[in-house]
């Protein structure tokens, strides 16, 4: 383990010379340009990066966050437990189930209940659909950043396949609000697992074409290889998360180290790459989509074999009137008991984490035994990744910033909360 003193962290010192490919750059101090990028810019905006340049080499990068700070932590303190689910979901609506799941888990920990078997698989199902959609979104935006418009059009087109699947399952394209304490809100509709298998087969075929047109494309390789390298020890030091961490050779995935829901029973791999550059980060995402497809197939098999019951904890469903059970057997829609509107959660403190599309998301929920949480603290993956701009981008040319920004898959609403 290295202490931060040994690592070159903050830009570089005045007067110091650094060797870059083909040139030596000295930070002079006075002759710096300062440019402001954003919040209106061609990528997925809503963030400003203040860059100080020496020539066209970045010497200091200051990410200016907070353009989408919607005060979720404060609002959560005034709202009842169930209302916080749609609230925190707005952090990253393209990854909705993964984002809300740890909050629901934390509340379940406080209430000391565990969802039934089928609900766990249903949650995993939507989580993986969301993860694929989220990675495809990230790759599309990466394409926009690099000016590779095919790579915007294709993933966004293929993402619609998974958005459509999620829509059939939950009734909304993006904002599913799917997990609730004790279970889920819908069961799979008729013919869903067959559609799911078709989508999986289609996506497998497409990923091969992605590799040909994007990952193996010499133009892309030339732009990404060796750019924004995060060495393993620096990645650990900065505490970055998700695919960015795994591209730097750290074997960490919450699904693996602390399996939640049904992940412990599923057979899948966590791809880890050694290089730590922008290209490796793109590769990790493609490989993760492959593993998610594998999980989806297993979940589809499992759901087919299970009886259609056990989507909600008995605490909430045992006393359900006949109308509720009729609606469920007719439409697969799980009605919420009126007690959900005033859910009283026992006092306590809970900490829960999950692996969202962009990395680990953690929630700290504190209850005083009232109808509203006393404190909800959430640290989102993008907020933990934002530190990369400050410590990794300096030393690169300005034109590498889009490649670094895109490869991090930074999503500002998620970071700002």
């Amino acid at each position, binding site marked *: 383990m290295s202490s931060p003193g040994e690592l070159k962290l903050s830009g570089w010192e005045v007067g110091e010379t650094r060797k870059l490919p083909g040139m030596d750059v000295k930070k002079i101090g006075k002759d710096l340009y300062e440019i402001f990028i954003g919040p209106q810019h061609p990528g997925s905006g809503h963030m400003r990066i203040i860059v100080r340049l020496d020539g066209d080499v970045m010497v200091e990068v200051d990410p200016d966050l907070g*353009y989408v700070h919607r005060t979720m932590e404060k609002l959560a303190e005034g709202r009842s437990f169930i209302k916080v689910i749609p609230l925190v979901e707005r952090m990253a*609506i393209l990854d909705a189930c993964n984002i809300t799941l740890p909050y629901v888990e934390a509340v379940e920990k406080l209430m000391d209940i565990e969802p039934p078997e089928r609900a766990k698989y249903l949650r995993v199902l939507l989580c993986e659909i969301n993860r694929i959609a989220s990675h495809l979104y990230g790759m599309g935006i990466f394409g926009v950043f690099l000016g590779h418009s095919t790579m915007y*059009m294709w993933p966004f087109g293929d993402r*619609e396949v998974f958005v459509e699947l999620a829509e059939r399952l939950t009734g909304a394209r*993006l904002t599913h609000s799917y997990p609730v304490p004790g279970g889920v809100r819908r069961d799979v509709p008729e013919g869903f697992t067959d559609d799911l298998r078709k989508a999986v087969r289609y996506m497998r075929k497409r990923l091969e074409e992605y590799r040909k047109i994007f990952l193996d494309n010499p133009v892309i390789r030339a732009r990404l290889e060796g750019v924004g390298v995060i060495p393993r020890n620096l990645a650990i030091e900065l505490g970055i998360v998700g695919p960015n961490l795994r591209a730097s050779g750290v074997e960490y995935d919450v699904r693996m180290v602390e399996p939640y829901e049904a992940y412990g029973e599923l057979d899948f791999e966590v791809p880890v790459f050694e290089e730590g550059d922008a290209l490796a980060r793109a590769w990790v995402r493609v490989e993760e989509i492959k593993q998610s497809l594998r999980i989806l197939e297993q979940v589809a098999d499992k759901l087919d074999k299970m009886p259609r019951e056990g989507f909600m904890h008995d605490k909430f469903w045992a006393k359900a009137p006949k109308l509720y059970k009729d609606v469920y057997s007719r439409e697969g829609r799980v009605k919420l008991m009126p007690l959900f509107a005033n859910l009283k959660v026992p006092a306590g403190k809970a900490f829960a984490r999950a692996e969202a599309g962009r990395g680990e998301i953690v929630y700290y929920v504190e209850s005083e035994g009232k109808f509203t949480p006393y404190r909800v603290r959430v640290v989102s993956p993008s907020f933990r990744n934002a530190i990369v701009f400050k410590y990794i981008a300096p030393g690169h040319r300005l034109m590498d910033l889009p490649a670094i920004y895109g490869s991090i898959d930074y999503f500002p609403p998620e970071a700002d909360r």
Partner: protein
Amino acid sequence: MSTLRSREARAGPPEEGRLYVGNLDAAARRARELLLGKMKLGKLVDWGTAFSLWPVHFTTSCCGCEFAATWSPRFDAERYGALPWLSPRQTNLIVIEGTVTKKMGCALRLVWEQMPHPKFAIAMGACALDGGIFYNSYNIVRPWEVVPVDVFIPGCPPRPEALARAIVELQRLIREKGVASKWIEEGEREDKPAPIPKEDLCSWWRG
């Protein structure tokens, strides 16, 4: 410097009724009246504007996901002649995608001011209407208090079809009511002023 001043002095006060001589402002206004009023070019202006609504690439919040999906292959809003563009100087439509925070409000106004008129705004999503789920947040502003909004889309987020519908409705509004040509004729649009003064929005702004 002195020649410039003397030329200004020679020009004298604006002369009414003469087209190509004298004050440039007056001449431009006269030309505008002639082209739009007498020669009925207004219809052409409206027609042209309706089919070249270029939204600026300015994402305020999470509805940007559906904004991107609207221009993706499945919904393909480029069919309406609308193409997201990078520079606000070359665009005439702003789609406010979701919440506008106080920090973003200033940026929104700055982008809006950079756009040439006639320009239009679409407020997308519940947060852009009355705050949506963040209605009582201390860090948001209502976007219709920052820029004049023409079309409102409910939903959180609205479907891409709804955004497409908003563009279609905006085209209809421009062509039926002649918003674009009227705007050029009358100068700055007066019907929807933005209530929050810029000083309040941008007092903290640096850069």
